[in-house]
Structure formats: structure tokens, C-alpha cells
């Protein structure tokens, strides 16, 4: 038995470092014998010969800070996040529009051996956290606060841009169709938590007023939006499969993504098929395996719905049709999906 473990950190995301400052950490008992030389080559492959000294210096300082006061800073971060959560859990008006996702919302019961639903108890405080963290297959990091906003009738992306950013200058990165993510970090202060709460209360009051001042038809529209955001969510599709042309073994699922990727470089191997006019569906009905020739990544949620060489499934199609986001990398609405021609899949050359 050899322990061979690698971890990559965006130091800049959660500790002190300039943007892009990152680290690779290694615990590999075979590193010296087997990896050091290829690692060095790989490092040279991807690293500029003019690396930025300021980034390196900031990584050095960030490490020192973490060793001197990382405990204190992370502790304060968690403290701030927990107190924000507590107030969000208990404020009556906020609860009406903003529901904080707790452990059980994000981790199904089968993965919670401890049975802990939430780390927080109004009487005993946060005493359940250790138990869950020590035992469960998955836990939620409480310093990241996902709030379901479906009840506002506003989708995540619009909420992020038009409400939080434009109105109140609050910046967040991640949204889903009906959630927004508030991340705390080691720079988060009690003051910034208070400001966020203040803004959320203002927004909740706004939504309250909007409802009160709405006419019957306007209310219908709001109700319709809320329903669409809370009940009519397109199910997330599983990975379908690689097309046989890119597979090595019928019993195991792996595919040669590189071969598929480079096969698309020759224009004659690919064509566009639209699904909004039914052309793609018709091809599938005729029994054709429609195979993606590119990555298709909608934002949000930001994961590839299709990768090169992957067969388009009914579920994926349904998901793509139901998406109401504007940003889909690898997809051009006026042309359709980039797929391989049937001829290209007969005997694709090795990539």
C-alpha cells in the first residue's frame, strides 16, 4: 500500500495572495522515485519563464500569515458565518423570501451517518457540527451560505446582477436558477455581515411592498414566476456515455476524449444540428447517435452538459431546452449544437 495524494489550492481564493496565486501540495510516498522528473517536465510545460514575482511574494506572505494567525482568522470567519446563518434562520420576514440551505438540504440522508440535519440548534447552539464532520460521508461547509430565493420570483442571475450588485454593490459569483451563494472569507467582518443582513431585509420589504401594491393580474405573473422557480425545475441530466467510436471496452465506460476533441478540428467531420426546430430530435428518432463535437457549458450551473465524443440523450436535450440562461459556452443558438457527422464516426483516426 502506497499513499499517493495530491491537492491543488487556489490560495488566492481563501487566503492572502494575489490573484492566480496557487499551490500544489504533495503527499506521495513514490514521489521521489517515480514522479519528480515527470513532475518537473509537466511544471515546465505549463509555467511561464517569466513568472510574476509579486504573486510568489504574496504566496510567501500568505503562508506566513496562515501559520501565524490562520487559526484566528478562519475561526473568526466561521464565527461570522454562523452568526449570519443564525439571524437568517430566525428573522421572520427574511424567512419568507430567503431560505438558507442547511446540511440536510444539500446532503441526502443516506450520506449523513450521524443523522444530523442541521448543525444549529436554537437552544444548544452549534454543537452538532463536530459530530457530522467527524463521521458523515458528506458535510456542508457552513461558511458558504446558499440561499434559495425562488419565493422572490426572481432568478439567481438577475438577483445577483440587478438587485445585489447594481442596487447595493454586493458582489457574489455563484448562482443557480433559484439560489445565490454568499461566501464568507478571512476578511469578512461583523460589519460586512451586518450590512448584508440590512440589504436582505430591505429587499424583503421591497418584495413585500411589491406584492401589496400589485393588481390581480400582476400577482398572477409573480405567482407564475415563483412556481417556475420552485416547482418546474428541469432535472439535471447524468453523463450519458461516450460514443462507441471513442470507447475501448464495452464493459467499462471510459472514453478517449482527446481523440474526439481533435477530430472536430477538421471541418468536414462536424455539422450543426438545431434542436429548436426539431432537426436534432428527428435525427435521434431515426436512430442516429447524435454525438457532440465540443464542450457545451451553460453558466450557471457551469458544468459541461456535453463533452466531445458524448452521445446526446433525451434528458440532456430536455435540460438544454428548459435552460433559460443566456450564456452557454460551445453553443450558438442560430446554428445549433456542433456534432460529428455520421461518416466521421465510422472509424475515427487516433488523436
Amino acid at each position, binding site marked *: 500500500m502506497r499513499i499517493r*495524494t495530491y491537492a491543488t489550492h487556489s490560495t488566492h481564493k481563501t487566503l492572502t495572495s494575489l490573484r492566480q496565486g*496557487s499551490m*500544489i501540495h504533495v503527499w*506521495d510516498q513514490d514521489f521521489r522515485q517515480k514522479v519528480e522528473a515527470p513532475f518537473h517536465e509537466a511544471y515546465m510545460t505549463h509555467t511561464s519563464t517569466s513568472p510574476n514575482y509579486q504573486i510568489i511574494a504574496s504566496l*510567501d506572505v500568505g503562508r506566513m500569515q496562515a501559520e501565524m494567525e490562520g487559526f484566528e482568522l478562519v475561526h473568526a470567519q466561521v464565527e461570522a458565518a454562523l452568526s449570519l446563518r443564525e439571524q437568517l434562520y430566525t428573522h421572520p420576514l427574511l424567512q419568507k423570501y430567503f431560505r438558507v440551505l442547511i446540511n440536510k438540504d444539500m446532503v441526502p440522508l443516506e450520506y449523513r451517518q450521524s443523522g444530523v440535519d442541521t448543525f444549529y440548534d436554537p437552544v444548544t447552539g452549534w454543537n452538532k457540527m463536530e459530530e457530522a464532520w467527524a463521521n458523515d460521508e458528506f458535510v456542508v461547509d457552513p461558511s458558504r451560505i446558499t440561499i434559495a430565493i425562488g419565493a422572490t420570483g426572481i432568478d439567481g442571475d438577475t438577483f445577483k446582477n440587478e438587485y445585489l450588485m447594481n442596487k447595493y454593490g454586493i458582489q457574489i459569483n455563484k448562482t443557480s436558477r433559484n439560489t445565490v451563494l454568499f461566501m464568507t472569507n478571512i476578511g469578512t467582518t461583523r460589519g460586512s455581515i451586518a450590512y448584508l443582513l440590512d440589504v436582505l431585509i430591505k429587499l424583503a420589504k421591497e418584495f413585500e411592498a411589491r406584492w401589496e401594491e400589485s393588481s390581480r393580474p400582476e400577482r398572477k405573473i409573480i405567482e407564475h414566476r415563483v412556481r417556475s422557480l420552485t416547482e418546474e425545475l428541469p432535472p439535471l441530466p447524468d*453523463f450519458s456515455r*461516450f460514443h462507441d467510436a471513442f470507447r475501448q471496452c464495452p464493459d*467499462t465506460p471510459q472514453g478517449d476524449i482527446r481523440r474526439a476533441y481533435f477530430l472536430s478540428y477538421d471541418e468536414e467531420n462536424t455539422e450543426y444540428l438545431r434542436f429548436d426546430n426539431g432537426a436534432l430530435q428527428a435525427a435521434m428518432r431515426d436512430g442516429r447517435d447524435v454525438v457532440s463535437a465540443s464542450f457545451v457549458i451553460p453558466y450557471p450551473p457551469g458544468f459541461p452538459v456535453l463533452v466531445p465524443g458524448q452521445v446526446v440523450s433525451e434528458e440532456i436535450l430536455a435540460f438544454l431546452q428548459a435552460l433559460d440562461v443566456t450564456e452557454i459556452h460551445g453553443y450558438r443558438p442560430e446554428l445549433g449544437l456542433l456534432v460529428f457527422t455520421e461518416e466521421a464516426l465510422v472509424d475515427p483516426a487516433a488523436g
Partner: protein
Amino acid sequence: MQESSPTETPYTALGFYHKISQLRADTWNALKRDLGQLVRQEAGSPRARTLVKAIDVKLTRLEIIEDYHAFPSKEDFRHLWSLFDREEYSLLEKVVKRLVRALISESYRRRHVDLSETDGDAEDLETLDALNQLRRGHPASNSSAQPYFELLIVDNLSAQEEEVVREAFHNMRRPEDRFVYDVVTVRSFEDALIAVLVNPNIQACLIRYEFPYKSKYNLSALRNYLEGLSEQELENQSEAERSILLSSMIHELRPEIDQFLVTSGDVEATASRDIRHFNRIFYRETDYIEQHHTILRAIDNRYRTPFFDALREYSKKPTGVFHAMPISRGKSVTRSHWAGHMIDFYGINIFLAETSATSGGLDSLLQPYGPIKKAQEYAARAFGARQSFFVTNGTSTANKIVVQALVKPRDIVLIDRDCHKSHHYGMVLAGAHVSYLDSYPLHDYSMYGAVPLHEIKKTLLAYKRAGELDKVKMLLLTNCTFDGVVYNVRRVMEECLAIKPDLVFLWDEAWFAFAGFNPTYRPRTAMHAARTLCERYRSEAYREEYAAWKAEFDQLDPDDDAT
């Protein structure tokens, strides 16, 4: 597979102490408010009596918290109580006000705050500090001043002895020291653990023999953490064993703390035990000079920033620039008619530190031999790795480096499909044969969780059945997803290794670098889990070897003296 047992993953007492610093600040403020009201009440009135009771409760609670902090000291607290007992409330209010000001402005980090004297000058200084802090919007931590920390002493000292020791360390202070520190004393095993949890100022710990196990406080909240340790057993342990156990528990909570052992006991007996968490062992209790310098040196070893220091040194040297990079030393902008606002905005230092040189005290990231090498070694220490490497182009690049270093074309990689896009491109570049794993979906919120262990094992077993397991090279997962779902890293590795003992793991912890600095989060980081497993297998292998040897030994004729 066995479930984790409490001794392996000790509970930490976050639930209890997670809000201690807010509790501390809030209680002091409330005390100040109560006192402010009390001095305006008529003595003996019902309202006054209620306030006195409330003040008593708050002082009692604060005394427990402050027992684990150097400021206010135990002597300060005795002073507060004596004012309270003598009903000198207006003086008490004044002293508490000063104390709160000193805590908020953190002036105690820079100078001695003597609460017993009502010195106008000292008060002025604290007021000034408080004002400065208001102006700057954050605690006054002056970067050029001597950084401050606290030394924890674990020893069963009387109040008098404690003052003597504290004085002795104070007397060691010299203006030229790089750091200044104060002393916190605790008298028991339990108290030592609480102190390192609730007092982040503690950076060094001096463990001396002869301390009992139990705290004088009833710390039910600590029970979680101590689960698995039998009190009886601890009481029966020798003092040396107890000190060593304490040091390993402190290490588990706060591995960065520098620990020292003071013993007057049997040198050899101590040295032969598991003392790896001690930075050094002192044999003479009262050798303060030696202890003082050793402590300062240990702190300096963490505080040093080899590359940042080298870069600052470099930027001070006058150099003629005859290589590329006109912006170096600001040359292309200082005399520009148009681009001068870049200097106005950034200041000159960043340009003085910009260079393409790798000499002059600097180093090469691609072939480090000097300060970058050192800086990376320190990073490995901080993050619990065997080796660490800096990457100046994000984790996107870090991921591709690791994959390319380990994966050959046609090697099979198991990878979660909703991982960051750098991995998908990394797979393309490496020519890996990709086996995508599905995370459990959260349809109601249009997001994914993470990949269940049974899904991973099912896939591995499918490869085993197909006779393809030898082609599987790596398992690649996102530990701590964007949304905050965290794996049980150790369990995943343990159970996968049972199927495939040479599997390589790459954990994308882009969002989890901070987790290494909190005792609840740390066990779920890749580096901590790897170390834990490594130690476990090593001791198991040792146990098996020993058992085999013992079995053989036992078979020998017990009557034969030659064995």
C-alpha cells in the same frame, strides 16, 4: 470497512467555542453598560440591586474566559473583584472602560496596561489608540512594531508562583527583540486544551510536569472533544505520559503552535518516548534566558518570509537595467508624459520589485535553489504536505501540471463530471481515457452535490471485473465544491485503496486552502487524510510484523535459555 472511531477523528469543540470572541466582546460591552447605569442609580434601590447582580454574573463569566488570556491578567481581575466587593462602582466603571478600550484598540499588544493606577497619561494613550482605530477602521496592528503573542505555560503553580514566572519572562524582554510576548498560565490538562482553542494569541506552549487532568471549571462543552479518553486512565498515567499526550492533542488542534517541554525528571526516560511534537526539551526549569531565546527563534522560523524578504532587499539595490522589461524600476513610466498615473496609483515599490532577474538574491521558480525553495518548504510545513510547489497561473494550471505529471495517454482517470473545466481540458491534453462519475443531483436547486463513495467503488469494481483495473491510474474529485459540499477524504481513499492499492488521488481543493487552519475542517483535507492513513498503515504494518515475529518467538522452546 470500519467506521471512524472517535479517537481517530477527535471531536473538536467548535460548538462551544465558535462564538467565544464575540461572546467575550459582547459581555465586556454589556458590563460597561450595566456599570454606566449603576453609577447613575440611587444606591440600594431595587434597580441598583438588579444591576449589581447582573454585574456579578457578567464578571464571573468573564473571569472564566479571561483565565485563558494574558490580558486582563489574573491580578487585574483580582483588582476588579476588590473594587466590586468594596462597592466602589464608579471607580470600577472607570477601570472597566479603560480595559474595554485597551481590548478593542489592542493597545495591550504594544504596551503594558496597568489598570490599578489611574494614570492620566496612560489613559490618554489608550484614548489615542481607540481614536486611531476608529479612523483606520480596524484594530491597530502596526506592521513595523514588534508583533505580539502569548506563551502558554501548563503547570500547577500557585498564584504567587505564577506571578514570579510571569515577571521572570517579562524581565527577559529587550527592545531589540523581534517579538514581544506575555504569559498565560493554566493548571490542568483540560485547561490547556481550552486555552489553545479560545485564545488565538497563543503561539508557543511550555509544558511542565505535575499538572492534574481536570479543570476547576465544569467544562461539559469540552466533553465532545475528550470523548474516547478515559479520565481514570489519564489520572493514572505518569506525568511524562500525560505531557506527551497533551502535546499530541495540542498538535491536533493547532499544529502551528511551538511546543516545549520542561522537565526536571529522568532525561533518558523522556527522550526515548514519542516526543516529536516538542520543538525542544529543557531540563532546567528556571533557565529563562535559554527558554526565552529558543521561543523567539521558533516564532521567527514561522514569521520569516524568505522570498518576500529577498524581493524587498533586491528592490533596495541600485541596479542598471540592461535586460528586457522597461517597467522594471519604473523606468518606462516615471519619465512618461502620459503613463505617470500608473505610479500615482500603485506607488513606486511594485516597480522596484519588478524584474526579470533571477540573480541578486532572487531565485528561479522553474529551478529553485534559494529563497523560493525555502518558501516552498515552509509552505509544505504549513499545509502539512511533503512537498509544495507555487503556481503563478491559478489552480487551472496547477491541475494540468499534476495530471500531466502522473497520467500517460490511455491511462484511465475517474473524474467527477461537474468538476472545474480545467480538468476536462487537462484530460484532453494528457490523452487520458476518461471515466466520468456522476455527482448526486439536487434537482430542487439546480445544482450538484458530490460523487457518492458507492458510485466510485462500483466503477472501480466494474474495472476489476473487466480485468482493466491495472489501467486505472487516478481518481480526481473536487473537495469542497463551489457550493461547499465536503468529502470524507480519508474514508474515500481508504476504501478505494482496499480495491486498488496503487491508486493516485488528486483532490481539487481550489476552495479549501483555509481548511488546514481549523481543527474541525482540517481532518477533511487531502493532506491531513494522507498523513493519517500513512501513519495508520505504517503502524499496522509494524504491528503485523511484530505479531509475526512474536508468533515465531512463542513457538521456540520456552525452556531453552538461548532464545
